[in-house]
């Protein structure tokens, strides 16, 4: 069984690489029973959405102005 510390590492790494099947299963099981890690999963997901929104607003290469590459 994963500890919360290991689970949060996997939540973060899942945003940067494809987790193995065993890792995904382990994480999914852990999230079912752990409220703190479920909250963390949502928090990191929000950070990614917020960062993407920041980028969209500030970086003109990522805005859709009909002339994107």
């Amino acid at each position, binding site marked *: 069984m994963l500890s919360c*510390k290991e689970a949060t590492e996997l939540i973060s790494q899942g945003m*940067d690489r494809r987790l193995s099947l065993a890792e995904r299963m382990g994480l999914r099981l852990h999230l079912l029973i752990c409220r703190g890690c479920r909250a963390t999963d949502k*928090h990191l997901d929000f*950070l990614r959405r917020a960062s993407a929104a920041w980028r969209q607003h500030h*970086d*003109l290469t990522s805005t859709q102005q009909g002339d994107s590459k």
Partner: protein
Amino acid sequence: MTPDELSLQLAELRPRLVRFARLQLRDDGAAEDAVQEALLAAVENARSFDGASAAATWVFAILKNKLIDEFRRRGRNPVIAADDEVALETLLEEQFDARGHWREPPPAWSDPGASLEQKRFWEVFEICISSLPERPARVFGMRELLGMETEEICKELGISASNCWVLLHRARLGLRDCLSRRWFGED
């Protein structure tokens, strides 16, 4: 677009370019320099653009390359964690007990999506990114604010993939902690 029109257009973009560079370089002087270089490169290599937005897209692409150059240059220097990074690591470690379970599970944030619409949220967001230690902030910026792939970041900074993941993980949990305290009001 004539060269004069291009110069005018670029001058208008300047504040946006500086803001974009500043959050990532964390150094006003370096941000000004990077923007200056990007604008010069844009003028020197001026070609014909269909319109204003094509020129803007182009100069931003140049600036992003300048930022990556600067990251690459800096990336070679600090191999070991600075004091503030060690402090962050300790703070994150202390969230868990000896068996790796939450001492105090982090509470959910209420309606975070609504925050994205609030101007004040973005100020806090930028403050939290600026207050991260140098290395995690840089890797986070490259990953999430420049939208680079992890492999590219490792290559540019000359660090291993696992090192990169550790730094991203610290940056994210550090930001979570900062937003919890400063925006979602846990205290």
